[in-house]
């Protein structure tokens, strides 16, 4: 009979129906976000360069289109501030500098707390492994119990030195700050334009690189329990005086206007023997295409002060999700992918971006693009302090206050009174901080 489906054709129909259902389900699974676009604001950074070629693969897999915009650091701050302040922004993910902005953003409720997303097994498979991230790096991202971002770049302060100059002077690599001072003196010949030591001296940029000196002398910005400023403790003053004296006596002229571009230029030209700054700057000194002393430069752990070798070990950049985004799920997919073991291995091994995943650092691929002594120094520094500036909301103002003491020290002015004044101003700032 015609309207009776024969057993075979029925079966075929059923199979076809199931297959179609299965295919639709499979497509829905592999491209659940087909047609979604994510607006992602990034900074001009090697990480951004490293992630760009990987985006098409992500898009093909999930169907999410990434609209990436990149800006210089300060412009990014300006743009994010403008858009978030004006309200109703359509940014879905952005690169953050947790130490510079996280507290303020938390206060203004501009973040989506990522903790629930990370802990939810339905959203985040266990093998993505949040535990794989270095403890210090995660520490930087935690503000008032919120996970403000996932770390993607970590940074420590290290010592760059000229192997040939030290050898020539019969010195070994400085392991203590006293040895640093002695080496700085021996390598200095200002008349000939050779300087033993160079470091940042500009008001705000200097503060972060001074921090390791402060910590190694046993000082800190303020007591986090009592909220009392500690810029004029004996330890802090010793640190200020040491840093200023190093630059004043063994540093190049014009140090007061030096942020890393100028300091790096002096070193890369071959005119400085020792340089303390972030390890992320290493290409400027170690890349033969950029530096005239590439093959003569070594990297060492930050020297020890009276209270040990305490350098900063921070998350300099993380991936964050704004509170205002309407595409939380898609944005989390992107952030998860961008910070996964797989992707981190690629950005770290190909792009030479120091990531925050312990497992990647342990792998050979993770170390491939970094010089051996750099890796040793970075790994030894991983246990350092998780902040390189005061953990306050008004970071900009705090840095200006502290910077003025550094400048006074470099200029050889009265450090004691400068520190006392700064401490007063800083205390006022702390008192005005929202609780």
């Amino acid at each position, binding site marked *: 009979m015609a309207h009776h489906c024969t057993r075979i054709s029925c079966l075929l129909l059923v199979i076809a129906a199931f297959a179609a259902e299965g295919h639709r389900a499979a497509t829905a699974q592999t491209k659940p976000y087909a047609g979604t676009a994510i607006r992602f604001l990034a900074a001009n950074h090697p990480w951004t360069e490293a992630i760009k070629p990987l985006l098409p693969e992500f898009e093909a897999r999930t169907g999410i289109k990434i609209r990436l915009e990149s800006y210089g650091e*300060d412009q990014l*701050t*300006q743009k994010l*501030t403008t858009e978030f*302040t004006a309200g109703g922004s359509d940014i879905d993910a952005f690169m953050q500098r947790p130490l510079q902005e996280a507290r*303020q953003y938390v*206060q*203004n409720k501009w973040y989506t707390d990522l903790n629930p997303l990370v802990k939810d097994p339905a959203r985040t498979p266990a093998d993505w492994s949040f535990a794989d991230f270095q403890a210090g790096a995660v520490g930087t991202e935690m503000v008032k119990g919120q996970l403000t971002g996932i770390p993607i770049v970590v940074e420590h302060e290290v010592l760059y030195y000229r192997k040939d100059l030290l050898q020539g002077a019969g010195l070994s690599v400085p392991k203590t700050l006293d040895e640093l001072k002695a080496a700085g003196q021996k390598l200095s010949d200002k008349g000939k*334009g050779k*300087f033993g030591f160079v470091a940042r*001296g*500009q*008001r*705000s940029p200097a503060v972060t690189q001074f921090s390791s000196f402060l910590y190694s002398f046993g000082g800190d910005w303020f007591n986090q329990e009592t909220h009392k400023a500690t810029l004029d403790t004996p330890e802090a003053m010793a640190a200020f005086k040491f840093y200023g004296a190093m630059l004043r006596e063994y540093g*190049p*002229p*014009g*140090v*007061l*206007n*030096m942020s890393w*571009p*100028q300091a790096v*230029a*002096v070193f890369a*030209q071959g*005119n400085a023997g020792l340089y303390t700054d972030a390890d992320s700057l290493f290409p400027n000194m170690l890349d033969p295409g950029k530096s005239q002393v590439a093959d003569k430069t070594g990297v060492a752990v930050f020297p020890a002060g009276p209270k040990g070798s305490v350098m900063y070990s921070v998350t300099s950049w993380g991936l964050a999700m704004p509170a205002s985004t309407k595409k939380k799920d898609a944005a989390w997919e992107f952030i998860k992918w961008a910070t996964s073991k797989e992707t981190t291995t690629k950005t770290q091994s190909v792009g030479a971006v120091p990531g925050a995943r312990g497992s990647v650092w342990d792998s050979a691929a993770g170390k491939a693009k970094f010089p051996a002594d750099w890796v040793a120094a970075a790994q030894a520094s991983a246990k350092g302090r998780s902040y390189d500036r005061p953990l306050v*909301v*008004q970071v*900009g*103002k705090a840095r200006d206050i502290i*910077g*003025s003491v550094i*400048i006074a020290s470099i200029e050889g002015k009265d450090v004691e009174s400068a520190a006392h004044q700064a401490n007063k101003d800083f205390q006022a700032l702390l008192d*005005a*901080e*929202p609780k």
Partner: protein
Amino acid sequence: MRFEGFLDRHVRWVFPLPALVFVVVMMAFPIVYTVWNSLTGWSLSEGTPPDFVGLKNYVALIRDQRFLLAAARTFYFTVLAMAVEVVLGVAIALLLNRDFPGKRIVNSIMLLPMMATPVAIAMVWLFMYEPSAGVINHVLRVLGLPTPLWIAGADSVIPALALVDIWQWTPMIVLISLAGLAGLPADPYEAAEVDGATAWQTLWRVTIPMLMPTVTIAALLRLIDALKTFDIIYAMTGGGPGFSSETLNIYTYNQAFSYFSFGYASSALVVFFAIVLGVSLLVSVTRRTVEV
């Protein structure tokens, strides 16, 4: 025809109307927004909401040492840059006003300093000015001359920045003056020749007076811009060393985008605006009373 008659009778309103409407519409909201904010204590970093606080910000501003110093520095920088730019600009325009081979190219090349993107120019000068790594001091060292700190010294930073501004904007005065010279009528010159005037007399009694209106306007426009100079200072020193190159514009930018004190920054902006307006009015009124 009737439309044209209407236009003719009302040209003094019809001609400027589009420009006026545009300016008013585009400026109304921003100005109201800023003035309103200046009366609030809004600070993103201190967590204070935009509640009305009256003139508190303005009072604090007048007492703010840093603000007053910024104002002083702004004037110092502006006067220094302007004086040189106007004199040098007119002088070079006179020099270029003659016929010579390649005149067209030269006049166009004079545009280059203005055209280079501010941040690129700032980076170039930053590097050239570097006391030990830069090329300027290197040349001075070779010649046995003293090597100043330029932008790295608290005392030399404003003149060094003014030099960059002079380098960049003198061409603007030059070009406007050249256009002005090109438009000068020939009659007075023929009369001067008939009277037997020397070249010097012609310059001072004929050319310069006739050029004055154009130069004054160019100077006024430059004055406004010089008071508001931002790009090169921000990129080269960020207001440093210390705060010794922090001008009003840098100061307000820092308050807004570094300290996020929008209320306070707005009050600084209002005062800044008043200062620029005041100076502009002064110059333009002086110009009109001096003119015959």
